[in-house]
């Protein structure tokens, strides 16, 4: 059961990564990348690394996404 949950998360990880790479829309790609980070965060938590999980959620899904969105907004005027 535990292993199965990891496998599901890993599968989601690969799917979101492919979706980011294939996305034509930059803002959409940034949001998908946040979803990738959140999936990775769940995986860290489930593997017993809560410190890394919290960092992944705060930095990976939070600040990085906001900075990406700002850069996209500034460069596509």
């Amino acid at each position, binding site marked *: 059961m535990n292993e199965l949950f990891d496998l599901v998360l890993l599968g989601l990880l690969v799917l979101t990564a492919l979706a980011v790479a294939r996305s034509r829309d930059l803002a959409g790609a940034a949001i998908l990348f946040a979803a990738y980070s959140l999936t990775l965060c769940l995986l860290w938590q489930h*593997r017993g690394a809560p410190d890394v*999980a919290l*960092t992944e959620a705060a930095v990976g899904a939070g*600040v990085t996404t906001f900075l990406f969105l700002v850069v996209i907004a500034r460069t596509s005027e």
Partner: protein
Amino acid sequence: MKGRLAAAFATGVSIPMIAAMAALPRHGSPDQPIHTHVARHYIEQAPESANLVTQVLLDYRGMDTFGEVVVIFAALVAVLVLRARGERPLPAPSPSPIVGFIVRLVTPFFALFAFHVILTGHEAPGGGLQGAAILGGLVLMNGIVFGPERARAFLPTRALPWLQGAGPLAFLAAGILGGITTGFALGYPAHLPVLHEAMLVGVELGIGIGGAVIFSRLYLAMEA
């Protein structure tokens, strides 16, 4: 052609990596090196009821963490130097009422959680950098939704130069205090529990608030 080259390269890199991972010891098995080498020493020597990860970050490898804090500070300085001033600011966006309401609603809870993560960081998962990212994300979120002026309103103007250096400064203070009380720079006095606790919380607060200010200023440097 380019795509095939990239695919071949990715495959060529990932096959050895996957093979190497398959050769790793089983996850959690007690006889692998990380469980038999220094980890045991850390676990036995750590104070009770402490978060081992933070203990290692702030105590055993405090000098490393000090260096990392200085690197983040240097990144902000570099961006501020590179970024020319006087560009026209973007017009303030007009958020949809729903988005505006939700951001206003979650802002205080967001801030409370960030300080919870910072202040309990030395005993529970979390700590300065995570709290800094949450606080900084809060400022960035408000800036994106309500415009950079709103984000700037979160930062105290006069204390700003000191706050953005809060991480390195707090570490420096802890290093000197540790030097006086234990004879080692960045040593934490185990015989003075109150001071020990205060130093840990002080360093976490410094990293947390300093980091949040740095994240916010990186954003503002891009925005205006």
